[in-house]
């Protein structure tokens, strides 16, 4: 389940990153399409974190608490912070900030999956 969510969220956020970069090249500000895409991506990240938390509490996951909660916080938090920072920029660069946030979340999720004991 965790791996399925990681895949699905990565595809959504990958597509959003690609879209925002194309929009940036076209000198556009972040639009509704980007906002909705990031919203779906954040939903995926939250679901991913919720399932990870459930498994954390039910299974005996051999991952240190500090590492686990650090990753959970970042996976959930990076997109909203990136969105807030990017939407304040009323130029093409707002779109690039959104792409940075989306790609960082993807990297964090997969890094967590690497550390996650099978």
């Amino acid at each position, binding site marked *: 389940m965790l791996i399925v969510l990681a895949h699905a969220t990565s595809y959504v956020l990958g597509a959003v990153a690609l879209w925002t970069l194309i929009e940036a090249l076209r000198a556009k500000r972040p639009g509704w399409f980007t906002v909705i895409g990031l919203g779906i991506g954040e939903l995926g990240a939250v679901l991913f974190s919720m399932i990870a938390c459930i498994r954390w509490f039910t299974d005996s996951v051999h991952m*240190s608490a*500090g*590492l686990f909660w*650090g990753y959970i916080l*970042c996976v959930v938090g*990076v997109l909203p*912070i*990136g969105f807030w*920072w*990017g939407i*304040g*920029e009323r*130029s093409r*660069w*707002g779109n*690039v*900030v959104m792409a*940075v*946030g989306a790609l*960082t979340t993807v990297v964090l999720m997969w890094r967590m999956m690497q550390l996650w004991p099978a």
Partner: protein
Amino acid sequence: MTNSNHPTPTHTGTGFGRVIVATYGVFAISAFARAAYQLITDFHTAPMAYSLSGLAAAIYIVATIALARAGALARRIAAWAICIELIGVLAVGGWSVIAPNFFPSATVWSRFGSGYGYIPLILPLIGLWWLWRHRGHTT
């Protein structure tokens, strides 16, 4: 001298600077998380590497805030932080290649930041270029 790309060419946290601040922010968070985890859990196994992790985290945090803020002082602080960052990544990067035994545990700057897609090596160069482009601007 004004920048024609955006109406308020005044400080380093706007336009392309937003992207630089965002990237610095990502490194500030990840370096801080890594350093805090290393320093709390097993400082004694590699005190040198973990202290450097802590230093890197502090520099990224200072650089992020300084770049995001307007004003001559913020720009000066950003320039200092980024210069130290560049020296750090070059020194630790070179050192970790020449004497890998000295760094039993990795830092953000080990092997010129290869674990982070070499972004730690490129980022200070972009940061300094951006500051240089905005030299002389006051708010």
